[in-house]
């Protein structure tokens, strides 16, 4: 049983979220402003918080900062502020994820599940040298398997190779030419760059909840691709 705190000044949105997330494993708490959210965290055991930023009284960012003093609970910001600067500020202030309004309900459900899995499984199992873990993404080179938040992913061999290359060098940007040379073990020619780009796209669709706003496999436009370093 997971306790999920939904904090939004709009009761309609709270209700909608409750409907979408309705699951026998989840129970919900509600708060309509930041202060109420902090109080709820103080008095209850919360496993995940969905929080709006713009609220009367205490806003979501201040509330999150307060909550971080009390708990390590995952916080997903759910807000109408969609600018990059807002997202960066939210994530830097301690949020684990960021969803913009109006949201896609399926995406919210997926992200909530992902965060809960990570939160509850965190620290379980000691990393082996052949296992690379970045965020919820785990690549086991012995078994040639990749899991995302504990769930197995079925990747094609080339997709696996690309992911291994990128995860083995987190933070490093690889151009399509380099990827082709290192994965295909061939010098790039003709449409080879296109092949790499298509594979990356498929890979993103498999490992990202929203492929257009990737968390792990980032596109550096005009330069290449990289896997973000673990925080």
């Amino acid at each position, binding site marked *: 049983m997971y306790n999920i705190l939904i904090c939004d000044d709009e009761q309609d949105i709270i209700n909608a979220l409750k409907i979408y997330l309705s699951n026998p494993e989840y129970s919900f708490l509600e708060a309509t402003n930041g202060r109420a959210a902090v109080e709820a965290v103080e008095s209850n055991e919360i496993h995940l918080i969905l929080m709006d930023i*713009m609220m009367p009284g205490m806003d979501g960012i201040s509330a999150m900062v307060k909550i971080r003093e009390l708990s390590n609970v995952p916080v997903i910001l759910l807000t109408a502020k969609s*600018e990059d600067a807002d997202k960066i500020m939210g994530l830097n202030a301690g949020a684990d994820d960021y969803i913009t309004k109006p*949201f896609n309900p399926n995406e919210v459900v997926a992200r909530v599940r992902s965060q809960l899995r990570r939160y509850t499984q965190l620290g379980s199992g000691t990393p082996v040298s052949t296992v690379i873990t970045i965020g919820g993404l785990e690549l086991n080179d012995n078994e040639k398997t990749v899991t995302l938040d504990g769930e197995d992913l079925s990747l094609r061999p080339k997709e696996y190779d690309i992911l291994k290359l990128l995860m083995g060098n987190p933070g490093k940007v690889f151009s399509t030419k380099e990827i082709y040379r290192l994965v295909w073990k061939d010098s790039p020619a003709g449409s080879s760059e296109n092949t790499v*780009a298509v594979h990356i796209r498929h890979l993103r669709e498999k490992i990202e909840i929203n492929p257009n706003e990737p968390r792990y496999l980032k596109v550096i436009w005009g330069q290449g691709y990289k896997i973000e370093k673990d925080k």
Partner: protein
Amino acid sequence: MEENNKLVLAEDIETAEPQEATTPASPEKKKLPLTHSLPAKVAAFIVTVIAVIAFFGCAALGFLAFESNFYTTPKEEIRRNAFEGQVINDATEAANELYHDDFNGKDHATNIVARKNIAYITIDFSEDIVNKTWTYKSDKEAGDDTFSFYLYNFDDHYIHRVGDSIKAKGIAKVFVSLTRDFSYGDKYALTNTALNLVYSMRYMTYVVAFVALIVALSCFIFLMCASGRHKTSDKPEASFGTKIPFDLMVVGAMAVICLFAAPITQFRGRELVEFILAMFLMGVSLCVGLGLCMSLATRVKLGGWWKNTITFKVLNFFWRGFKYLCKLIGSIPLVWKTTIAACLIFFVDLLFVGLADEPEKVMYIFIRSVLLFPALIYVALMLRKLLDGSKDLAEGNLDKQVDTKGMVLDFKKAGDNLNNVGKGISLAVDERMKSERMKTELITNVSHDIKTPLTSIINYSDLIAKEPAGSEKIAEYAEVLHRQSEKLKRLIDDLVETSKATTGNLEVILTPVSVNELLSQAEGEYEQKMEAAGLTLISNMPEETVSIMADGRRLWRVFDNLLNNACKYALSGTRVYMSLETQDKEAVITFKNTSRDALNISAEELMERFVRGDKSRNSTTEGNGLGLAIAKSLTELQNGRLDLTVDGDLFKAEIRFPLI
């Protein structure tokens, strides 16, 4: 005589008119104006030269006839006068022979007069100490022309006419009679023929001269019209001849004319050979002159005839040099200019006064200069300060102030005014910036407030649609609600982005970006989407990496918008082209696709906000038409250029970025 000229002229034309000689005369296929025909031009040229020569010839003849009183004197007297000179020559020669040889050399005298048109000649020395008579008689019949003279042969060996008062020791009487029919080909015969001709034509010559003048003038006008016209085109054309500087041509032509015409003035006009030669030389000069006129006519038709002259070029050269000098002087810094000018004036003053040798004036000049010099430099320095200040203003450095310290009177006023202008403008600019920022902020904030209720609308419409108990119609209406609210969401996002991009309220970080890489990435991203829309994406790019300075994320947004548009509006089953090339230090990225609907709209209108490819704003297509406006603004923010072209159903977007 005219036959002779014609031959000579025909040769001359080819050398004097090379532009005509180069065009072969071929039979005309279509009806062209006569001015375009080469044979007509050649004929006109020849006719002009002949007519001019004829005019001058006839005029000269007329003048000769007039001078020789052909109209008042009877023909017989004219004849006598014409023969007289030759008769005196022959008789003097014979008499000299006879006298010196004391009649022993009769054969010599006979040789002199034999085979000439002299019927008989008697030289009578009876009044002299010699007292002898010599007679020669040919077998020809004597004519009407009889001459008798006194011969005075001791002192001047010259024949004097009867009636002249002569005081001399030795005098001989001479009688000469010429033959009737002038059958010998000597000078008498020639004179006789010429005389007869001139006499018979003494009235006719004016008519011929007049006609020749008219013909010459009309042919000349025709030639001027025809020059530069060719069979091939309606417009006048330059030819080889017009490439020669005109004044050089004039000088050359003048030289040729002088060379040929100068001997004419030396001719006495008494002999036929001289006459023919004069005609020939005149013909050559005329050809050259006429060629020159035609060349000028061609140049005038082509326009700017003075440009291809050495004179113009030389003057132009000097003018440019003068302008350059002025520029050079203008580029010397103000203070230096003033100093140099002041020193020059001082020295000139000193020079003149010094020459006058007046020490007190020299002293005055010196003191005046010493006082005036610092003042001049001060003025120049202040002027420079004001100049720099106004330059800063003009360049938009509004916060720079003119330093009015040390400025006095009007300079200070001018400096203060400049500063006030700067303050005023910078205030206005700040105001404007602030209002732009506020506008963007307003749009952003309103969009946030709209999004919250929108979230509920989207979610609940979704929930209604999923509700199992509802009727089919309710689900359908909910679906419409859901679709339209999704559209509203996109519209709000685009609106915010447009407002930011157009007001420049968007952070752009320019870094080196490989366009090849970006195109490959774009291809990867869009492969599936294109396939779903029934389109084929074809990309062309060079092997070598093309790098530009851009913000990768923003540039991707531009590509994204353009490719997205292609997916939405391109005709299914066609190809979408994406290509990269380099042109004049620019990277050119081109997107091309065939529109599904007719593009009854201009490229400019397409770019404007809220205008979609179809003017009817067909709501079945997605999107809101802001994509192109955003793409354009974003490209410009990164110092690039986006141009749209609509050609029928072909839609083309061209992005240009300077290469690194």
